[in-house]
Every structure is written in structure tokens, then in C-alpha cells.
């Protein structure tokens, strides 16, 4: 096992929480549907405005370090992080309420659809309080575990976080994971209990959970309703009061952390940076600590949340920087930038993104290969964490083996390919990388290293060549109502997981920590976990099941008997479609002149029938499998 040794492999992601307290939702109370819509309205963050809209350059020197706060909001999915962010922006006049809709439209389609943040977003808020003007830099982070490395980098640009917890759902697995990321980074944590307006909200219970799990006194919790704006002002004040200003020095040479980067077709890479020391302005020559490449700065500014050019950025501030970089790999997340000839100690914690989930990607039609190739190239320009290797399969033809940070990352990538480049692909079942320690010197010479990494199952070395195989592991947190504890533990054991911890976070909820082989959870663990607790699972499972049934229905040819297609979770059927039996399938006219043609047609069909796969007594065309597999990947 390459468990502890391989910590480098599991990284920040080791804290990841995959399958969170899915169970209790259904058990406790109805889903908080009103807030589910929240993701749709929140998009204040995007880089919405074109440069044409840019205002006059602003002078950032008027904000002294003690009036600056850098903070982030962390939360479990759907706990209202983005809604809170919207309110904060509105309160500080950064955006108008009326502009919301427009901003929503400009979002990445995939983010809107999934209600998730894929790219980190940043906004500088200007806020007057007690006679002083404060610069509050809000750094929004991707919520999902796949991006926990990005989260940790974003957090390292902050001094404090708002930990948002749903008053209805309480602490969830992701809450825990995020808390520990912040805790490890030694940030001030301000717990915010959101959605107190909901009928089933129980903020007191959540306060107790927070006290128990995070050891934060319950009186420190701020109870708000981001949706209605209740108490949101207090959040801003708490940010100023409880989060310390950054400890930085303008006099020192420049030291800036890249915590995000995007690619703009016209301007090149736009790097989001947090300045720990020094000053940067247009014309400076900067160097990347990672690539050692020198670039000249073309533009600096703050994100408001649109790009607003500034004369200079000063230590403690957060903003963007454009320096003629042509590729996002030149501004990798976590990298340190400094001035040419004024080398500094790089900020700690930089790691190149390491893909942990690999899948084959093939064009559905080989003639689409080149189009798909260019689409993948364009997308990876924007996302340096995806690795691309050429691959080919006997069945699927030429394609690639792509590495992703995690499953969601993979799905998002696939969805963007489809939506933005209109490419349709076959994605194979994801696998995780393995390592193999080679057994003989000869082999080591052949492979050029003792320990090889295998990303493609087809290239797995034989047992005789290897002394040891290593697999990546992750630390998973599961929060569940106690009645499911037994089932969850059985499931984890069946997945070769090792229990690390188990505590009751309140009277009836248990937090379990397990060390999982990544391979065991990468494909369907989340689904299995959800299906343990029928209630919650049904909603989403129902729609997924329905979609698969429908797809299968459309790809199955009619046969002589009715075919029922059912989707089941465990033994419970959640969706059903039927392929009706043929009622009439016979050539109407078959006389002397029709016989030759009819016989030819029948023989061709009979040949085609031989190529169908028989499942039971149902004949299934090959592409039906592909079609169904495809739905699974974009569920």
C-alpha cells in the first residue's frame, strides 16, 4: 500500500469528503427547495464585463495594509455560499441587484446547470465602517473536493474564512473538510449559520454541532439568511473585526501568489494574484518561481468582480495581472511571482496539479478525431490540471487517455467539450493511477526508473516484473444519521477502507473518517452510499434513472415482445420505460418483382441481427451500450 508514504499523492485531497451526509436530508425534513435555486441567482463573480467597460484606473495606494481583509467563503454544496457572496457584493455596492440576471447569463453553462463553482472567482469590496474605508477581498473558491488543492491555494491568500453552514442540514462532510483546510492554514474562522428563514431551520442544533466538531464557541456563530439579507451586514463587520489584516511588507521585494489563472483569447493568461510583499505595476519584469520564465507586466488591477485596471497593486492586496503569458501552465496555481533579479523565497505549498482519475476519451466517429483533438487542446489551455496522452483502443479507435483531478472534474470537462465545442465523445470508465516497484535492475534500466506509474490499465506490468504495487488512497469523511452507521461501515469495509475516526457530532449523527483506496470509490461509491439511505437518493437517482431508461429505450430496436426497462436502486425500482412490441412488421406488397429485393433486405437484417448482443433474450445493438455509458458520464 502506498498509503501514508503516498501522502504526496493524496495531497490536500486527502481531506476530501466525497460522500457526505446524504442520508440525513431525507430523514430530517423536506429538501430546502427554495434555496436550491440559489446557484442560479448568485453569479456575481464572473468576469462579466468586457474591457470596453473598464473605468478609470484606480489608485490602490489609498488602502493601507491595516484596512485590508482577505477572506474566503467555504461551505458544503448548496449551503448558500454564493448567495451570501451576492449579498455581500450588493451591500458594498459592487453590483446592483438589477444586474443579477445579466450576470447569470454570462456564466459558464456547466456551472449554471450544476450549480457549482468550477473556477475560483474574486471580488474586491470597498466598505466604509466606522469612518474608515476598508478593502475586503473576497476570494470565492471552487466548492468541490476535486478542487481542494485550488481551495487550499486560495485559502493561503486569505487570513480568514466564513464557514457557512445550512441551519437546516447542519454540518456536512464538505463543511468538515473545508474547515480543516482553513484550520491547517491557521486562518480565523467565522461560522455563519445560513438559511435561518427556513421553516425547519434549527440554528441552535447547528451551533452545538459547530461547537462539538470545530471547537468554536456557539456565541461566535452569526445567524443569517443570505436569501433575505437578514444579518448580512453583521458578517461584514465580523470580517473586519475578527479577521486580521495580512502580515505583509510593501518595502520588501515583490512576492505574489498565483491562486488562479484563466486564459483570454486576446490578452493571454490572466493570473489572479495575492501580494504578500512588495508592489507590482505595469512594465515590471516578473519571474515565475516554477518556470523561471520572465514576463513583462502589461496590466494590473483589481476584480470588482470585473477587471478594473489599477496603477499598482500593493502588498496585502488581491487582484489580477496580465503579463503576456501564453499558456496557463506558465501561471500555475500556487506558483510564486517575483521581480526579475530580485529573487525571493517562493511561498510554500506549491504543487503541480496531479491528476488522480484517468479515463479514455474517444470520438464517437473516428472522422471526428481531428475536431475533437483541437477541442481538447483549446479546453486544456484553460485548465492545466488535465493531462493528455494519446491512446488507442481496438474497439474505439484512436483517442486519448486524459487525467483529471477527480470525477467531477472529468464530468465538467466532458460537459464543456459537448457544450462549448459540440463534440460528442465516448468516455471510458475512470481508473486511478497505480505505481509499481520493479523487481530487477534490468527492468529498472528498461523503464528508466524503479517506480513506474501506470495510468492505463492496458499497460499494467506483469506480476513477475514487480515487487510491489502501490495505489493512491484518500481520507474520506462521511456524516450520516446514526441509524445508517452500520450499513455505511459495511459498505466502507467492502471497499477495503480503513476506519480512522468515528464521533457523534450530535445526538443522532455520526461522523466517520475512513482511508479509502481511491480506486474503490472513484466510480460508484457515492451512488452506493446514497442508495443506502433511500430517502435522499431517490430524487436525484430518479431523474438519472429516468434519463438512462429513456436513452436505452431510444436505442433498443423494437422486438417481438414488450421490453420493460427499469432503473433500480438496490431492489427499489425508480424509473421505468417500455419498448413496445412490434405490432406490424411485414412488407405489404410482395409479388414477383419484390422478391429479390425483399430477400436481400431480410438477409442483410439477419446479418445485422447476428451482430446484436443478446442480453437475456433481448437483442441489443452495440451502440446502445455506448449511449447508455455516455449518459452516465453526463448525469
Amino acid at each position: 500500500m502506498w498509503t501514508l508514504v503516498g501522502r504526496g499523492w493524496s495531497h490536500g485531497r486527502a481531506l476530501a469528503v466525497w460522500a457526505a451526509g446524504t442520508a440525513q436530508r431525507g430523514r430530517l425534513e423536506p429538501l430546502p427547495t427554495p434555496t436550491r435555486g440559489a446557484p442560479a441567482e448568485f453569479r456575481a463573480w464572473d468576469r462579466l464585463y468586457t474591457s470596453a467597460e473598464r473605468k478609470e484606473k484606480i489608485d490602490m495606494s489609498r488602502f493601507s495594509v491595516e484596512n485590508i481583509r482577505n477572506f474566503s467563503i467555504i461551505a458544503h454544496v448548496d449551503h448558500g455560499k454564493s448567495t451570501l457572496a451576492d449579498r455581500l457584493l450588493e451591500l458594498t455596492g459592487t453590483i446592483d441587484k438589477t444586474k443579477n440576471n445579466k450576470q447569470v447569463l454570462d456564466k459558464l453553462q456547466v456551472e449554471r446547470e450544476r450549480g457549482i463553482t468550477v473556477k475560483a472567482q474574486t471580488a474586491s469590496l470597498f466598505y466604509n465602517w466606522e469612518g474608515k474605508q476598508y478593502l475586503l477581498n473576497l476570494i470565492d473558491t471552487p466548492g468541490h473536493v476535486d478542487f481542494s488543492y485550488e481551495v487550499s491555494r486560495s485559502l493561503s491568500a486569505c487570513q480568514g474564512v466564513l464557514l457557512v453552514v445550512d441551519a437546516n442540514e447542519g454540518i456536512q462532510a464538505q463543511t468538515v473538510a473545508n474547515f480543516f483546510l482553513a484550520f491547517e492554514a491557521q486562518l480565523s474562522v467565522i461560522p455563519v449559520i445560513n438559511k435561518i428563514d427556513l421553516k425547519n431551520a434549527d440554528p441552535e442544533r447547528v451551533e452545538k454541532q459547530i461547537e462539538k466538531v470545530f471547537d468554536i464557541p456557539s456565541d461566535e456563530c452569526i445567524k443569517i439568511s443570505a436569501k433575505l439579507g437578514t444579518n448580512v451586514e453583521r458578517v461584514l463587520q465580523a470580517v473586519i473585526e475578527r479577521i486580521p489584516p495580512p502580515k505583509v511588507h510593501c518595502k520588501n521585494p515583490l512576492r505574489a501568489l498565483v491562486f488562479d489563472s484563466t486564459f483570454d483569447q486576446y490578452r493571454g493568461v490572466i493570473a489572479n494574484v495575492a501580494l504578500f510583499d512588495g508592489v507590482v505595476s505595469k512594465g515590471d519584469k516578473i519571474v515565475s518561481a516554477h518556470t523561471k520564465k520572465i514576463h513583462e507586466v502589461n496590466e494590473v488591477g483589481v476584480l470588482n468582480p470585473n477587471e478594473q485596471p489599477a496603477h499598482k497593486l500593493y502588498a496585502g492586496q488581491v487582484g489580477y495581472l496580465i503579463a503576456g503569458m501564453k499558456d496557463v501552465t506558465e501561471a500555475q496555481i500556487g506558483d510564486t511571482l517575483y521581480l526579475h533579479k530580485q529573487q525571493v523565497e517562493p511561498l510554500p505549498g506549491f504543487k503541480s496539479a496531479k491528476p488522480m482519475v484517468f479515463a479514455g476519451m474517444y470520438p464517437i466517429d473516428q472522422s471526428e478525431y481531428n475536431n475533437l483533438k483541437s477541442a481538447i487542446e483549446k479546453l486544456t489551455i484553460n485548465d492545466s490540471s488535465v493531462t493528455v496522452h494519446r491512446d488507442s483502443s481496438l474497439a474505439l479507435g484512436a483517442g486519448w487517455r486524459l487525467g483529471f483531478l477527480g470525477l467531477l472534474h472529468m464530468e465538467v470537462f466532458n460537459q464543456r467539450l459537448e457544450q462549448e465545442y459540440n463534440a460528442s465523445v465516448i468516455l471510458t470508465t475512470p481508473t486511478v493511477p497505480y505505481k509499481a516497484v520493479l523487481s530487477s535492475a534490468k527492468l529498472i534500466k528498461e523503464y528508466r526508473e524503479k517506480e513506474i506509474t501506470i495510468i492505463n490499465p492496458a499497460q499494467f506490468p506483469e506480476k513477475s516484473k514487480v515487487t510491489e504495487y502501490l495505489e493512491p488512497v484518500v481520507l474520506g469523511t462521511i456524516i450520516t444519521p446514526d441509524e445508517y452507521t452500520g450499513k455505511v461501515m459495511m459498505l466502507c469495509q467492502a471497499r477495503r477502507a480503513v476506519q480512522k475516526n468515528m464521533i457523534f457530532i450530535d445526538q443522532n449523527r455520526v461522523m466517520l473518517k475512513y482511508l479509502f483506496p481511491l480506486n474503490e470509490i472513484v466510480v460508484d461509491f457515492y451512488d452506493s452510499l446514497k442508495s443506502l439511505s433511500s430517502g435522499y437518493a431517490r430524487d436525484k437517482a430518479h431523474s438519472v434513472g429516468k434519463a438512462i431508461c429513456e436513452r436505452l429505450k431510444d436505442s433498443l430496436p423494437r422486438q417481438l415482445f414488450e421490453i420493460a426497462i427499469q432503473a433500480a436502486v438496490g431492489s427499489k425500482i425508480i424509473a421505468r420505460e417500455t419498448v413496445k412490441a412490434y405490432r406490424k412488421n411485414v412488407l405489404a406488397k410482395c409479388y414477383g418483382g419484390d422478391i429479390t429485393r425483399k430477400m436481400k433486405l431480410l438477409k442483410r437484417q439477419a446479418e445485422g441481427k447476428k451482430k446484436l448482443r443478446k442480453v437475456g433474450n433481448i437483442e441489443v445493438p452495440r451502440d446502445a451500450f455506448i449511449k447508455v455509458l455516455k449518459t452516465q458520464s453526463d448525469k
Partner: protein
Amino acid sequence: MGRGTRPRTGGQKAGEAAQPTTLSRKGRTGGRGKRVRAQQVAPQRRGPGPSQPVRGRGARSRSPSSSCRGGPGGPAGAALRTPVRPGACLPISRRTRPLPAVAGAMALPGARARGWAAATKMAQRRRHAEDAKGFPSPAPPSSRAALYVHWPYCEKRCSYCNFNKYVPRGVEEAAMRSCLVTEAQTLLGLSGVQRVDSVFFGGGTPSLASPNTVAAVLEAVDQAAHLPADSEVTLEANPTSAPGSRLAAFGAAGINRLSIGLQSLDDKELQLLGRTHSASDALQTLAEARRLFPGRVSVDLMLGLPAQKSGPWLRQLRELLGYCDDHISLYQLTLERGTALFTQVQRGTLPAPDPEVAAEMYQEGRAVLREAGFRQYEVSNFARNGALSTHNWTYWQCGQYLGVGPGAHGRFVPQGAGGHTREARIQTLEPDNWMKEVTLFGHGTRKRVPLGELELLEEVLAMGLRTDVGITHQHWQRFASQLSLWDVFGSSQEVKALLVQGLLLLDHRGLRCSWEGLAVLDSLLLTLLPRLQEAWLQRAPSPGQGG
């Protein structure tokens, strides 16, 4: 026929006759052409009796005798100049000797035809009385055949039809007639057939042809081979091209059965189909036909048209039952590529026919006809009082048939030329070319494909199951002496599943579809055909198997 003298009719009927739809690549391309006016046959070196090139758009040639001159002699002179045809699978052996029976016979075809027709009348009732079930054929099958004659012209294109038909500016009917006669003679000679059991004039719109032409062909057939007086001789007729007087003339020429392309009793639907007749035209023609050919009139009714609903269609069917004779064909519309209807559906200007609705119409229609005392003796054909179509029965029983005319298909053993293997034959598609070839070589066969034993068995299976009788053990035995139906299908699990499902029956009588099975026969065949192939390959090699 002059343009002005003949009633112009609507499109050809999508009849129940053998339709030359499948052809070699070459043939197909030729067949789609828009053109076609019957072109004058170039004078060629001919046999006895110089042919008189028929001139003008021929309002003349009232007398059949004048029009048939020169027809028969052709083959003799042309035989030596057999070209190599790219489409042919076998070198076509042209006849090298003139047909002995033919030479003198053509002197008075009209008179003969009338004589033959008269005898037919007498025989009609006799034949009618006998139950058509099974159509026992006492004579050796190879010495008898059915004959199909294709008249390729139509006045208008119907929106659903993709048959081999042409809308000419003018038909040189005399030339066409002469060629039909010649080809019939040649092919009958080649086949060595002694007796023709049925003749079917299909098209195109054969009711646009003159009765003289029909008479000439029948006479030639009777001369070249025996055409018994009680043989079924069917003509496809379009309501508008067949007023009573013309029908009577066809009757005098030897036609004793009519198949009327009525298609619908709804004028809007008729319009959609591109038919030129109205529902009342059709009923009038039907009444005339029944008066002239009592008990021997068939009507076609289409189902599954775009936007057609089950209820109204069933009302049409019931209405039709009040007028019809003893034979009805129900045809589900097949949208064929290249037709106007197909294009309209493709473009979305018409809704695609709903297969579910069509299936419902079919099932209900079958039930209605059953109640009315009709026997569904084939997938699309219904008869009462034993009025089955002998000619079409031959197709489904894999009897021999000869195809005469442009694009006609035939299946027979060319015994007259020393052959022993059944061949699938296709005549040249395009009328002008076909006529040239017939004039040069005596026939316009474009493609000959020998049918292997297995292929023939496959046809026996696929065609036979279309009938209510299915394939009897005796019938199967005739084609496969070494391999019984039990041998082939008795042990197959897949076939068993179909039997259990009640779609198929295999018993002491033979193999046949159930009522439900008949509607999905094409699906059943996808199981049965591979099974037959398998059994054929596994069969014990028998000593006599010549290949």
C-alpha cells in the same frame, strides 16, 4: 392509340402484380428517368416478314393483326450478335433458333385471341367453383408457369409510387405490342413451359394499353405454350382509364379478372396520393367491373397514409364492403425514397405516417374482413367464395413465372435452352432500350442470376409464410427432399420461443404464422432464415446433391 382518342387516366395503380422494383445498378438508374415516349423501333435485320416500322402516334392499327407483324421473327437474325452485358451475371445465351411454334401463329392473332377469350368465358364458372385452397398443381412444376406482362406507361406519377413506370408524351403502342409479343414468345420458348396457368397485366397502367395489345399477347402465349381457357387473366385497371366500354373490350380480348386501384374512398386522400380519380369514379368503375366480371374483381385499399386516422379508415373499409366483390387487398403505404410523398414527409410538410396507427388499422381491418366472410389468404390479400388470385399465389408458392416487358422479373428454369437451375431474371428497365433489345435479340433480359438450392429454399420460406396455409410439409418436400421442416426448425430454441409466444405454428400440416405472427412476419424471418442457413450447412451431405 391517339392522344385524343384515349381517355387519359391518372397514375398507374400500385397493383398487386409483380413489380419490377429491384434491378441491377445499371437497370435502376435507367429506370428513374422522366423521359420516355415510346420510341420507334429502328428497322433491323429481321426474320421472315419485314417489319413495318410503325409510324406516327398511331391512331391507326385498329386491327390487331396489322400491329403484330414482324414481331416474332426477330430472334433468329439477332442471335449471332449477342453483346456482352455488363449487368449480366451469366453470359446470356440468346436463342439460336427461331421458335418453331411462333412462325405461323401470328397471322391472325386477333381472331385467335377472340376465340381464346370466348373459351375462357365458358371456363370461368367452372374454375370459380373449385376451392382455391392449396392450388394443387398436378403437372410437373417445371412445365408450367405464370406470366407477368409489364405495361410501363402511366399518365401521371402518383405521389407514393416508385415502380418502373414512365409518363410518355405518346406511346407507340404497335411497337410496344410487337415487342411484348416477341418477348413472351422468346421467354416461353426458353422456359420450355407447356402450360401457362395465369397471366397478369401489371404496370404502369396497363388499362391504358389497348385491348388489342392484350389480345395479341394472350394469343401469342396460347400459341407458344398452352393457355387453358380457364386460366386466370388479370388486368390492373385505374378507375379513370377504364370506363365500362373499355372494360368490356378487355373482356373480349381475354381478360377475365380485374384488379382496380381504388386506393381510398376519400377524395382528399386520393388527391394526396396523386390519383386522378375521385371516390365516385372508383365506385362507378367497380360497379361496371362487377357487372362484366362477376366474382372476379379485386380492389386495393391503402392504409397508413400521413395523418390518416384509424376510425375514418375503418369506415371507408366498411363502406367499401357494401360495393366490393370477392377480393380485397389492404396495402400499408410504404414511403419509398424518390417519391413525392417521401420528400414531403422528409421536409416535414406532411406528418410521417404513424406505424402504431397503421398497425391498428391493419389489425382492425383484418378483423372486419374476417367478419365479412373473407379469408386472409396472404398478408395483404383477402378473398371470399374462393376468389383467390391464382397468379399471385404462384409467387408465394415459388412457382415458376415469366416476366415480360420493361423491368419485369421472372423466375424459371430455362429448360428450353437446356438449363436445370432456376434463374431470377430481370428485363431491361427502360422501355426504349428494352424495345431495342427485344427487336435485336427477341428478349430484353438484362440480368440472370441462378438461384442456389438454399436461396430457393429461403424464398420458399419467406414467401410461403405470407400465406395462411403457410408451408405444408408436402410443399417443402418439393423443394427440399433431404431436409424436412422438422429437421430445420424442430430443435431450434429460438424457433421454439416463437412457437411458445404463439407467433408461429409447426405441426403435422407444416409451418405457418398465427394470426398475430403474420403481422410481424418480417421479424420472424430474421430468426427463421439464419436457422435455415445453419441447418443447410449442417445437413448430412447427401449423395445426390449436385449443388
